[in-house]
């Protein structure tokens, strides 16, 4: 009898766990589906880095993204300031499974370098954003656990599949009432301590389908540093193709 009860409790517990996993995955898929079909996008960005004494340093960059359905997206980032890195650019082919392909262009010597995409957890240009925070968010890159629902907000815990990630988990809040757009992400470091909080704000709906935030603010609770990523514009009408995401395109960008 005891055994039966134990089995019932255990299977009930397992059932709840797997249910939470399924629901988490479902939400991530719903968010992906809601954003499907943007095809290509370009944006001009301003990045404001603030240290704990309030000293500010700025970067300007342009990001171009090409949506791919079968595999991960392709993206090209071009720096325009600070001036010593002007023209420096990176090309990334994201893969749903396995490491991404990445190339760096150094304009002073006109050199294209294939670089390792292994450094996921490192800081992007000295900011509070890690490379993995900015790479294309593919559903396959995490496993999931649904935590709770509050009003229209769905809170899902995500565990990176890649052991090289700098996080044990992320807690993501989706807005069900607005195309499953992300409102906040909390990042927990390898020791499972709260490291950073990313807040999305100034959302606008483009093409009646795609929610895009104009401001992404990343606060590092441990170092007390902050980085604000400001999207000055979103252009969905550039009709970019594969030809705009080649090593030749990287050199001429």
């Amino acid at each position: 009898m005891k055994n039966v009860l134990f089995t019932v409790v255990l299977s009930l517990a397992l059932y709840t766990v797997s249910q939470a996993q399924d629901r988490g995955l479902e939400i991530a898929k719903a968010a992906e589906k809601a954003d499907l079909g943007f095809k290509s996008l370009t944006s001009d960005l301003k990045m404001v880095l603030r240290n704990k004494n309030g000293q500010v340093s700025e970067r300007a960059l342009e990001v171009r993204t090409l949506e791919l359905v079968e595999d991960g997206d392709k993206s090209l980032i071009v720096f325009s300031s600070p001036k010593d890195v002007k023209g420096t650019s990176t090309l990334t082919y994201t893969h749903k499974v396995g490491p991404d392909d990445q190339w760096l262009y150094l304009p002073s010597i006109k050199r294209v370098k294939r670089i390792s995409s292994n450094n996921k957890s490192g800081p992007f240009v000295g900011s509070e954003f890690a490379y993995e925070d900015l790479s294309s968010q593919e559903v396959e890159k995490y496993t999931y656990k649904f935590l709770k629902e509050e009003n229209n907000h769905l809170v899902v815990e995500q565990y990176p599949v890649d052991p090289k990630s700098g996080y044990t988990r992320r807690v993501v809040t989706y807005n069900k009432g607005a195309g499953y757009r992300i409102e906040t992400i909390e990042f927990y470091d390898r020791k499972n301590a709260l490291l950073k909080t990313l807040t999305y704000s100034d959302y606008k709906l483009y093409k009646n389908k795609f929610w895009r935030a104009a401001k992404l603010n990343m606060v590092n609770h441990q170092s007390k540093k902050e980085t604000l990523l400001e999207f000055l514009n979103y252009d969905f009408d550039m009709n970019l193709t594969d030809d705009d995401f080649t090593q030749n395109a990287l050199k001429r960008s």
Partner: protein
Amino acid sequence: MMKKHIIYILIGLFLSFTHAQDETPGKKLHHDLELDIELENRYFLEAPAFYSQTRYYPSLALKPKYTIDLNGGGNSINIEGFVRVDRDDERTHFDFREFYFHKVKGNWELSIGLKKVFWGVTESNHLVDVINQTDAIESFDGEEKLGQPMVQFSIYTNLGTFDLFYLPYHRKRTLPGAKGRFRYPVIIKTDDVLYESSVKEWHQDVSLRYGNSFNSVDLGLSYFYGTGREPLVQFNAQGVAALYPIIHQVGLDLQITNNTFLWKLESIYRSSGLQKFLALTAGFEYTISNIKSSGIDIGLILEYLYDERGDLAFSALQNDLFFGSRIAFNDVQDTSILLGIITDLEKSSKIIGIEASRRMGNTMKLELEGRLFNNIADNEPFLSNFKKDSFIGLTLIKYF
């Protein structure tokens, strides 16, 4: 002296041009003007080998850059100038690194004019990089190049990228004058270097390259036919004999990117009427990234350098090992350090190099460069010339 006057006039013209640009804003054409001013100070650690040389070399360089997009963005004109004023009259020089018309349409591109092109994957030596002449008086590492007149057609297909080059004019390698460092006992006047071709610099050269990336592999195959960029130099009783031969060169560059390891190979086979040889550079770069969540990356580079010509090579790298370390702090100022040592496997010679840089504020950068020549063997025909040329240099760059 004449040359210096020309350079001052060019600087003046450029500055007035910059000024004129400011007065005509709001044009529909998208264009962009930039200027870098570099103040370089090189201090040589040992008393000079020759009477006319000194120990301290302050130097000023200007790098103006102008690009203009014509009708929409498919067509553009790109100009990159270079001017240096130095104690050495030969190092005082100007050049158009680039001055070309560029057209992009779908999967192909066309470039006509002076341009810089880089090929290769290794760090310590650039064997396959054959298109541009080296501006050898600019830096010892050979990474500064002169603008090469060309017509380049590039097409990206499912099979890879094909580049075709027509190179109508050869440019001679720059060499130091009597007052300059890194010189030879005999001053090789740039104009004294002879050509194998009867039409001299007008030999019509051609080149092609095929490049492809699949999964973790990046592969390049190249071919060059024409006047070589590297002169054949022989010191003899009369002084010096130098000649640019007609060469055929096939090249291979290969990189395999496997997580933290980048495996690299560059190899060339060059043949001319005077010599045939094989050379290769092979090795790896291993990076430990974000050490203890500090953001710091440390890369370790090991490369083996081989040149079949041995002592006849117009370079120091015949059978050597390069060990380097690249430290990137990934901080707000982009601080980075590259340390390297090239050790000759047969002789005692060692070259130690350091390059470091850090941004200051938003529009300035400080660069440190050092080369130390250590235990240079007397029977090193190329390197022994520079035994006394160890230096430390500090460069301040202001970006406008």
